[in-house]
């Protein structure tokens, strides 16, 4: 591509077309540009256009296209690969770097921004080595006196240097910073001084001031970046200049710079906020050097706080400023700056209290954006808010001055409460602030699970609760002063571990009552508070609040909870649903009378939300609640399972048919639970579904696998005979699922769960023809890609098989696959790896299985396998006595990651659909050690003399000692 007018013309045409709303015109043009972007001179044509085109749209379009082109192509990734060639030739690169800075600086702002971005992308790759004159070029522009140009340079510098704020220290990075400092620090300092001077000469010129303050903000940001990694020598030497000027700027005000906007921060606020950050950086990292300046900054920042208004636009500045004070006041060597009673009082009065006030914006959020309000207030996503900053300052001050601060605040709390009492409907915000103040003063440590865990002992929380919180909650109207209601409920919630139980019991009916409040925040808080109270632990690990204590309230609680779900804005309120779940779990059988109505409401809800599942937590608790209803009811009356099936199956069918992916794993879990409730043969309705469960499409989704395996296991437990007789043609499909699972390193254990159930429950003759294939599959996996997890599952399985079919059958089927296979598996797998088996039941299965191999397998006594007899016994004793071997080879750390194909709906396990641990050995063997002793005894009776001689020749002494212990315990001797 030549730099010709014709080409410029063509390019202009195509650029114009890329702006066309019609995709039929736009797309081909974009394609064309992409196809020519590898040509030499293409970027230079773009630069020419953005500079010289007659049309402004083309200029802008060319600049955006250029920026994107640079973003895509400038970086050369390692050694060039075939399909990722270097699209920008060297001469173009040189030309771009030679021209872009002056071009950027002479362009109008819209284009300047694009080019500035492009420069920082190029800079990230080429600066400093391959672009040595960039800095000088930039610095030279400082002399221009044109602040449009200067701001362009500063903005570019900022985007080049801001990575110093987060990158790790390295010689390479520091070399670059040093280079930057050498070239940039002095000119920047001079520019800083000059700009400040200009600010005073232009103190009456609003438009000039705006430009100058934009420069100052950028300069302050650059200061932060350049000083971040370490305190540079230059800045240490020039600290006086910088800090004195920063200090002056903090105290500066100019009417011309004040903005009318209430929300958006103005230049003055942005600058002061950045200066607070700079001071905080120095205070944290360069304390020793910064010490002489710090007191001045404390005073300035505190004055700033006192004089700054309540508008939202000041929020960032105020919270930054307060955080600065908070971080300084807890340092021992600055304690003296705060300890004067007057200082403390004035900080409390002028900084903390005003910033704790409930503002119009908070009120708006409370009413119109309650979800956001709750998230901030309840879940602590309030890190940048004023209230939060004020709270942190209280806690910081309390580190050294808990007594005085508590004293000062008590005065404020009392006077605010008095104000409130005079005229509640006007002054309710005073009470809100009082409650907030008490809360922040009293809470020293807090968790979601327990609320406040450490409280300020100087605050009498119970007294405040009884005198000021309860009265609000007892008032006749639940809808009056909703903010104060929410405050009161929150108070109960967070101080639940400090307030005595009898007070909590008094509160419960009040909370239940507030479930009816119209305000979303209020009824949500009420639900959440109840839920939290119900999880509290009393003595001996039972709940603090008992079902008996709740007896009088069961009906009203359940009614109000479900009614709350019908209040506007709360139809999928997760807090309410969680409270429902928790109430069920606490109340247990006392909910049974209400179940018919409850399950109807839950099913309707389920049906409604399944149209468009959007609240995962809500949905999860809803299914948990369904599970609880089933468990609790069927525990008292097993026959009730039928009525649940009747109520639920219709919705379930719809969910399955419509393939509601989020819900399917839940449905399988609930079905498993229901099926396991049946005592007799599996109902027909389940059998009708059986073939569908084997559909490969279901098994492709990771989230379905655990609950589906669980469900199939339930089918096998309850209906193995039915499957064998009525669905024998589905057995290969069932085993196909097993094969699919076993092929995956991530899911193979699930495959084994299924296989174990098949072996345990299916009538032997129904799987006879498949047994050999099963083993071959397993051996293939063992040979090709064994992992520790696989081996553990494999060991459990073959021992289960041995228990079920006998040791001889195991040996025979192994050896029928390949001669001497049995010996090989013993020697290479069982003996060396058995120590890795984990889990009580698993270990027991292995112990009993191995005992059988030792004592009920004739080939172990009189073939070449005999030499493995003692090592196997030794391994078994090891399994009994040695600590588990939990080492995992290094290369296995990442297996699951590479095996999980992309993100899929994760499996959400329902706690209340939990499966009891199943022990297939069960009562058959109680104590596997004794069982071993008895079995050995039996063997020795059958062939007297052999066993003791095998023991004495090669069993190690320690193992022998253990074995003698077992024999003694079983009161047998070996013949």
């Amino acid at each position, binding site marked *: 591509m030549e730099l010709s007018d014709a080409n410029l013309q063509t390019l202009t045409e195509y650029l114009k077309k890329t702006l066309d709303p019609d995709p039929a015109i736009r797309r081909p043009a974009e394609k064309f540009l992409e196809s020519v972007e590898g040509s030499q001179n293409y970027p230079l044509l773009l630069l020419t256009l953005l500079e010289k085109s007659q049309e402004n749209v083309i200029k802008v379009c060319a600049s955006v296209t250029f920026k994107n082109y640079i973003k895509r192509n400038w970086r050369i990734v*390692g050694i060039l690969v075939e399909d990722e060639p270097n699209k920008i030739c060297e001469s173009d690169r040189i030309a771009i770097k030679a021209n872009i800075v002056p071009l950027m600086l002479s362009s109008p702002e819209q284009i300047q921004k694009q080019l500035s971005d492009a420069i920082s992308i190029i800079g990230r790759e080429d600066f400093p080595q391959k672009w040595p004159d960039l800095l000088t070029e930039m610095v030279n522009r400082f002399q221009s006196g044109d602040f449009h140009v200067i701001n362009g340079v500063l903005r570019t510098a900022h985007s080049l240097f801001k990575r110093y*704020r*987060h*990158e*790790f220290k390295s*010689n*390479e990075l*520091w070399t670059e*910073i*040093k280079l930057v*400092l050498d070239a940039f620090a002095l000119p920047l300092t001079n520019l800083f001084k000059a700009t400040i001077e200009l600010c005073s000469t232009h103190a009456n010129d609003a438009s000039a001031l705006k430009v100058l303050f934009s420069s100052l903000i950028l300069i302050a940001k650059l200061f932060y970046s350049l000083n971040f*990694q*370490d305190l*540079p*020598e230059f800045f*240490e*030497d020039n600290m006086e200049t910088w800090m004195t000027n920063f200090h002056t700027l903090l105290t500066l005000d100019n009417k011309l710079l004040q903005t009318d906007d209430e929300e958006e921060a103005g230049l003055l606020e942005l600058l002061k906020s950045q200066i607070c950050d700079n001071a905080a950086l120095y205070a*944290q*990292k360069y*304390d*020793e050097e910064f010490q002489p300046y710090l007191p001045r900054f404390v005073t300035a920042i505190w004055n700033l706080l006192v004089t700054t208004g309540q508008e939202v636009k000041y929020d960032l500045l105020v919270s930054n400023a307060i955080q600065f004070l908070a*971080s300084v006041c807890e340092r021992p060597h600055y304690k003296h700056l705060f300890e004067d009673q007057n200082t403390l009082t004035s900080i409390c009065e002028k900084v903390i209290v005003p910033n704790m006030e409930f503002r119009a914006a908070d009120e708006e959020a409370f009413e119109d954006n309650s979800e956001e309000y709750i998230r901030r207030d309840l879940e*602590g996503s309030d*890190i940048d808010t004023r209230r939060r900053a004020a709270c942190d300052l209280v806690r910081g001050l309390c580190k050294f001055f808990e007594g005085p601060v508590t004293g000062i605040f008590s005065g404020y709390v009392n006077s605010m409460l008095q104000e409130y009492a005079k005229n509640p409907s006007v002054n309710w915000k005073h009470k809100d602030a009082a409650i907030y103040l008490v809360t922040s003063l009293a809470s020293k*440590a*807090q*968790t979601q*699970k*327990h609320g406040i865990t450490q409280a300020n002992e100087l605050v009498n929380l119970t007294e405040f609760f009884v005198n000021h919180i309860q009265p609000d909650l007892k008032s006749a109207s639940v809808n009056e002063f909703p903010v104060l209601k929410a405050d009161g409920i929150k108070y109960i919630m967070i101080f639940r571990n400090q307030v005595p139980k009898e007070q909590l019991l008094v509160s419960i009916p009040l909370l239940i009552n507030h479930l009816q409040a119209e305000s979303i925040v209020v009824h949500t808080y009420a639900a959440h508070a109840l839920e939290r109270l*119900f*999880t509290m*632990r009393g003595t001996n*690990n*039972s*709940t603090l609040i008992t079902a008996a204590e709740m007896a009088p309230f069961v009906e009203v609680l359940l009614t109000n909870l479900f009614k709350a779900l019908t209040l506007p804005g709360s139809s999928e309120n997760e807090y309410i649903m969680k409270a429902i779940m928790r109430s069920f*779990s*606490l109340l*247990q059988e006392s909910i049974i009378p209400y179940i018919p109505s409850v399950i109807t409401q839950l099913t309707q809800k389920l049906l409604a939300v399944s149209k468009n599942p959007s609240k995962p*937590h809500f949905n999860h608790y809803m299914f*948990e609640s369904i599970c609880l209803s089933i*468990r609790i009811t069927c*525990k008292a009356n097993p026959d009730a399972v039928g009525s649940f099936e009747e109520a639920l199956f219709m919705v379930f069918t719809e969910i399955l048919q419509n393939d509601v992916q989020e819900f399917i794993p839940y449905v399988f879990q609930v079905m498993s639970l229901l099926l396991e409730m049946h005592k007799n043969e599996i109902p027909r309705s389940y059998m009708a579904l059986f073939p569908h469960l084997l559909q490969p499409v279901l098994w492709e989704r990771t989230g379905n696998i*655990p609950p589906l395996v669980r469900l199939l296991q339930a089918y096998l437990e309850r209906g193995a005979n039915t499957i064998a007789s009525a669905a024998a043609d589905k057995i290969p499909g069932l085993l196909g699922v097993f094969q699919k699972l076993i092929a995956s390193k*991530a899911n193979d254990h699930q495959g084994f*769960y299924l296989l174990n159930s098949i072996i345990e429950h299916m009538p032997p003759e129904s799987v006879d023809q498949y047994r050999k294939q099963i083993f071959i599959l397993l051996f293939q996996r063992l040979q090709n890609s064994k992992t520790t997890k696989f081996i*553990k*599952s494999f060991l459990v399985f073959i021992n289960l098989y041995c228990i079920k079919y006998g040791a001889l059958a195991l040996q025979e089927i192994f050896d029928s696959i390949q001669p001497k296979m049995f010996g090989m598996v013993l020697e290479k797998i069982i003996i060396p790896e058995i120590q890795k088996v*984990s889990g009580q*039941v*698993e270990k027991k299965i292995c112990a009993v299985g191995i005992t059988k191999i030792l004592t009920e397998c004739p080939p172990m006594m009189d073939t070449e396998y005999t030499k493995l007899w003692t090592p196997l016994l030794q391994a078994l004793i090891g399994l009994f006595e040695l600590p588990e071997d939990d080492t995992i080879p290094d290369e296995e*750390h990442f297996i*699951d990651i590479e095996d999980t194909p992309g993100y899929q709906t*994760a*499996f959400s*396990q329902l*706690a*209340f659909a*939990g*499966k*009891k641990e199943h022990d297939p050995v069960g009562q058959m063997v109680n104590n596997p050690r004794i069982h071993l002793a008895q079995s050995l005894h039996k063997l020795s009776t059958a062939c007297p003399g052999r066993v003791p001689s095998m023991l004495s020749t090669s069993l190690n002494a320690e193992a022998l000692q253990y074995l003698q212990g077992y024999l003694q315990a079983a009161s047998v001797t070996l013949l």
Partner: protein
Amino acid sequence: LPVMSKQGEHMKKFKNKGKDTDSLRRQRVEVTVQLRKAKKDEQILKRRSISFSVLGQSLSPGEDKRDEVIPLSLEEIAEAVNGSNTKLQLQATQAARKILSKQKDPPINQIIELGIIPRLTEFLGRSDNAALQFEAAWALTNIASGTSSHTKAVVEAGAIPAFISLLSSPHMHISEQSVWALGNIAGDGPLYRDALISCSVIPPLLALVSPATPVGFLRNITWTLSNLCRNKNPYPPLNAVEEILPVLICLVEHEDKEIISDSCWAISYLTDGSNDRIQIVVDTGILPRLVELLDRPELIIMTPALRAVGNVVTGTDEQTQAAIDAGVLAVLPRLLRHSKTSIQKEAAWALSNIAAGPGQQIQQLITCGLLPPLVELLDKGDFKAQKEAVWVVANFTTGGTTEQVVELVRSGVLRPLLNLLLAKDSKTILIILDTISNLFLAAEKLGETERLCLLVEELDGLEKIEALQNHDNNMVYRAALNIIEKYFSGEENPDLQPGTDQDGLYDFSVEKQDFDF
């Protein structure tokens, strides 16, 4: 990508817990790039010039009082030096020396440009004229005390052999002046240091050390010896070190503070290296003396002694043990609480390397009461010291046994550690996050995960870790995310413990163990 490979290394450090403790020991960072101002009291000067202010206490035997130096212009100096009149030569050399002895910015470059250095070097050989030898030596000393290129000008004029032979001058003030000059040359860097060594500077230098040597002279010798030990890449030749060490061992026992200080510096240089270098020093049995010196109130002694001991504990487990046996753990608490932040930092660095050792060394660290001052430092120390303290905790949690880690948590380390998540330093944050992971591993072993979760949350750690999920540094954000996902995401699940459930319903244990999503 360099970032990735660094991460790889990092993972190696922390993944295989306790397997690779050697790699946890952190050598003194080779500072090739420095942004900060060099702190004068933390280093002795590589070069020293002789100004008038040093004179009073120094070698010159009342020279200036004897005859007033006649001030000359640079041209006159050049002319006289190059001339043949001995008296004028002396006067000019004296005048040059005087100009070079100005305290502030002596005009070394101009003197070099006069081209008189070869002549001055020549004068060093004029054993017939001690005064001229002395003045020339002094002038050259001050030239060599300048920048590298200044030193180079002196060396290239052939001054090395001339000065070395002057070491044996019958005039003590001349040999002392030569010691000084050679010190400046040696301090320039490994190249000239080794040039001196290969010109056999050591034997005549060591020969000057005797019980009769005046203290002032001995100070100079010690300083020059320290410069002969200084610098790595390469280290000074082994045989040179072996020659010097026995004398250093004697000097470190001297009662003069400066002699002790400089000999400690020398030892600190010799230990700043690979383990075999450290071993040579350890074998001299010097460690108890060094530890004793750690307890001295004078900063000029404590600083280099701490550096030396700090270097030793970067070595093997055995070398570290030798330092422990010498009693270093008993003095470290005081040093960690020292008012000088550079001492805190250096002490914490040393401690971090002891914490990188095997379990029994960590145990000794606990037994000797290092945990309380560590927690204090972490809480209230200067930022540089806090960073080192974070390393101590990181190494401790990597190599310590579960019981030791429990002890650490009991000592209150968690609160200040979590507070430091607000540090404005990505590396520190990352190390803390890794440490938190280590703590969780220990908690898992004890079945105390939930308690640790609560503790972290109570101390406002959770919200800090959550906030770090938005950090600009990729590794930091990933580490934070990892912790949140692993320990804090199932906020509901620990809640669902079957405390209210009499059925033993909470039973997915088989799945749980192997379940990996």
